[in-house]
Each structure stands twice: as C-alpha cells, then as structure tokens.
C-alpha cells in the first residue's frame, strides 16, 4: 500500500504589491511513496521540496490537486496523529526545556498521560540528548535543536515521518547518528520521507528518490536502478604516482590521489591496461566497472531541464 499518494498537487503564489502576479512554486506533482521505504526528495535550494512538505502537513494550501496520506485525505486532522514532521531549521519555544517541550507535544499528539514521561525520556535518549535537564532551549546549540526536532517528530511513535533537511546543522558524527536512526525507523516498519540536497546522504539511505527542480519533478526511481547504469568505462586503481605512457595512449583519464593513481578508460581497453601495468611491474589495486553515481544522475537531470528550457526559449 502507498503511504503517500500525491495526485497532481500544485502551488501558485500570487506575488507583488497587489498580489496579482502568479509565481508557480510547484508544477502538478504525481508521486507515490510505498509503506516501509526511505524515500529521498532531492533538489537544489528553491526547487519546491519544502513547499511540497508544507502542503502535505496542511501548512500551505494547494492551488490544485490532492494527496492521500496513510489512506486518509491530506487535510484529515486524524491522520496527523500517525505522522511526524521535522521542519527545516526548526525553532522551538525557547523558554521551555527539552523535557517540557516534548511533554507539550506529546499532549498535543494525544499520547496518554501515563506514557508521556517514559516516551519523553526514551526519545531524548534515542537522539542523544542526555544531561540537559533544566536547560532551556534558548541555550541549545544548532545541532542540539536539530536533535530536539528529530525527537519531537518521532515522539508519538508515528507510522510515517517527514524530515525536511534533517542533517542540516549537524556535525559528521551527528549526521551519522541521524542516518542510523532513519535506518532503525525503517527496520521498525516506518516510512521515512525526507528532503535533502546532500546527495551522499540520499545515496546511502534511500530505497527510492525523486528529483525536483524549479517546482517540477525531473525523475524518480530506485537508487539501485539509477546508479546501476554501466557507462562502458572501467576504473583502474594502482599503487604509486607514475602513469605508464601506454596508459595515456589508451585514452585513460588519470588522477593521482595520495599514493594511488585512479584511471578511467574505455571498457574494451581493460585487458590492455592490466597487461601494461604488469609489464611495468606496477601493483594493481582494483578494477571496477564505472557506474553512474546519484550525483551524476542528479546533475544530468538538472542539466537536461536547463538544455530543454534553453531550446524552448
């Protein structure tokens, strides 16, 4: 079953002094997110990711189209008890402590009174916010606020979690912890929908991704499929900093990184390259078919749209 069905959702804002000039933030969007998957919503800044999330959360009203979340209409208040949301760069009531904040959100989410305290402690432990009793949120660092944000999103044990740029403001360790947490959520059978422009996070985590640019869906698919395309090239890595002349003659693009040389060359030159290295007594480290990275796919989709736009104009 689809956890999220987006059916032609679109948004146009009226801008200008008299609110007469239309500005389209999101073209009609059709998208399905299956239950239990981690879905990445990718795009550069200003692509329409946050607008989409806000519409799904009922913060912004769509100009047209609709969406179904966990088999309910997007604007059904009851469905909100089953979803969690972390906004981009979250800001909370800074006069509260993290415990008070989470207690308040637990009340609003309908968590029974007896369970609230235990849930709050559990979730704070889970996001690594310990030893903060009595500290008001105004004294929290950006990373701590992000952790508090993640805590409030999963506090009420939702079936579906929306994260808007969850890694923002986190140090490498924090990012790793959030990635682990998202994987745990998946293992618990929850669906995770997150927006990001950090492609390495998406590649490491997502089952499927969608790419949006300038309010338009440019591509959608399983990460494994998008990155499995072999480009007819191989990557050869050998020890040392020397590049044999024969390699250059084969048309290899070589880069020295540390004590190794990485060379990309046509697949049909693979055997010749191995022979060349053997002749020169150079130690071969790896030879792998070159696959499309998510980044390459992303850039291709963005460039394709720019080229198309250029041709049309």
């Amino acid at each position, binding site marked *: 079953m689809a956890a999220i069905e987006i059916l032609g959702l679109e948004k146009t804002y009226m801008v200008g002094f008299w609110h007469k000039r239309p500005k389209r933030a999101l073209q009609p969007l059709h998208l399905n997110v299956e239950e239990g998957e981690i879905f990445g919503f990718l795009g550069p800044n200003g692509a329409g990711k946050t607008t989409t999330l806000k519409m799904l959360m009922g913060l912004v009203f769509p100009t047209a189209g609709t969406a179904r979340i966990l088999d309910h209409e997007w604007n059904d208040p009851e469905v909100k008890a089953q979803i969690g949301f972390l*906004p981009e760069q979250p800001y909370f009531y800074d006069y509260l402590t993290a415990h008070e904040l989470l207690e308040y959100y637990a009340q609003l989410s309908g968590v029974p009174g007896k369970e609230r305290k235990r849930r709050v402690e559990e979730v704070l432990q889970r996001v690594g916010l310990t030893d903060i009793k009595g500290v008001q949120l105004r004294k929290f660092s950006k990373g701590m606020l992000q952790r508090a944000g993640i805590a409030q999103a999963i506090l009420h044990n939702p079936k579906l979690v929306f994260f808007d740029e969850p890694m923002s403001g986190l140090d490498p360790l924090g990012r790793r912890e959030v990635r682990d947490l998202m994987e745990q959520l998946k293992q618990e059978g929850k669906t995770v929908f997150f927006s990001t422009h950090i492609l390495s996070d998406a590649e490491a985590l997502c089952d499927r991704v969608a790419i949006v640019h300038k309010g338009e869906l440019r591509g959608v698919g399983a990460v494994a499929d998008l990155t499995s395309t072999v480009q007819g090239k191989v990557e050869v890595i050998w020890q040392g900093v020397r590049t044999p002349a024969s390699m250059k003659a084969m048309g290899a693009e070589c880069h020295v990184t540390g004590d190794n040389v990485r060379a990309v060359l046509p697949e049909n030159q693979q055997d010749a390259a191995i022979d060349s290295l053997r002749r020169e007594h150079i130690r071969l480290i790896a030879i792998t078919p070159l696959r499309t990275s998510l980044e390459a796919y992303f850039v291709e989709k963005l460039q394709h749209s720019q080229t198309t736009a250029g041709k049309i104009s």
Partner: protein
Amino acid sequence: MSPRMIYIASNTFREAVRDRVLYNLIAFALLLSGAAIFVGQISIDIERLVVINLGLTAVSLFGIVIAIFIGIGLVSKEIEKRTLYTVLSRPVRRWEFIVGKFLGLAGTLVVNTFFMAIGVFAALLYVAHKFSAPDALILVALYFIILEFLIICSLALFFSSFSSPLLSAVFAFSLFVIGSFADDLRGFATLTHGVTRWIATAAAYLVPNFSALNVISAVAHQQPLASRLILQNSLYALFYTAMALSSAVLIFERRNLK
C-alpha cells in the same frame, strides 16, 4: 472543550510568566503604594476617591497594554519563528490553536488583575483604614475591566491573524481609544444627517463600546450600578469577543504559512 485547547492555553500562560510579563505587578505595586502614601499625606477626605480612581485606571491601562502587546504577537510570532509548524502538523485544528492562545492570554490577564486587585484593596485599606459596603462595587468595576481585556485580546488576535505586529498594535490601540469614546460617537451620530449620520452610526456600533464598561468613576463616587448593566455588559462583551475570535479563525483557517 478540547483538551488540546487547554494545553495550548497553559503553554501560552507559561510563556507569559517566563517572559516576565507579570513583572508589571512590581511597577503597579510601586505606583499604588507611592500614590497611597502621597494622597494619605495631602488630601482631606478624598483619599478613597483618589486611590480607587488611580488604582482601577492603572489596572485597566496595565492590562490593556499587556493584552495588546502580547495579543498582537500570539499568532504572528509563532509564524515568524516557525514554532507553529510543529504544532499544526499534529492533530490540532487551527481554530483550537486560536482559541487556546486566546484563553492563555485571557488567563494571564485574569491572574494579573487578581494580584492588582489585592493591591487596590490594600491601598484602600491603608488610606481609609476600613472597608465600607460600597467598596464591593470595586469588584464589579474589576469584572468590567476583565470584560474589556477579553474584547481587546480578541481584537489583537484578530488583527494579528492577517496583519504585521506593528499594524496590529496600531489597529488594536486605535480601536481601544475610539471605543473608549463610543458613547460620544453615538451622540455625534444623532446630531448628523444623511450619509454622515449613517456612517457615524455604523462606526459607533461597530467599535467596541468601552465607555459602557468603564464604571471606575461611578464606583469611586459610590454611585449605585444597575444590576442589569452587569448582564448587558457581560452579554455584549461575550458577543463581541466571539465575533472577533470567529473572524480571526475564519482568516487563519485560510492562511498559507509560508
């Protein structure tokens, strides 16, 4: 009443307390005790009149300032700081949020007024040395002041549901000033003719009638108050507040939180 509204109201009250809104009580206490000592020394037989007039006027003005300046930020601050996103993404209806915020601010003002009322009675006891039966009317005046706060809170909330905090403050304060002269405006309407009369009458009935809620002078002069005035003012204030709150909800229900 939905429990979510109560949670939002108590959080609003907690915010006001932690933002040191109740510190105004210190200024009020200083003002009143200073005035009591001062009139106790210089006036002859009018100490009671001065203390009641000054005390109740201060209760009203302090509360109005709090109602306007907190009320205008109740919604706009939450949108600006994006704290609203994590509230409305839960099973909270937008109307519950508005009404909860209103109840929280109203509760803050009632608590504030309660402590100020203790101050007024203490100052009165200090200058008059005893209470007399007509002093009970001070409670009626305080009740009317609270009704005044309810109207102002709902208006501030109404303006803040679509306008910037600065404009909301200007609108709410202007309505308070005009509303304080509502009786004069109605009198003026009867003196005019044609379109002017029509406009003046409409304006006189549209602005909140704060002059009907102001019985401070009558109470200070120990004039009796008609009991039907309490019923009339209660119904009027509740109706006006409900209308302003409903309008705020109608606007907020359609607002995009960009």
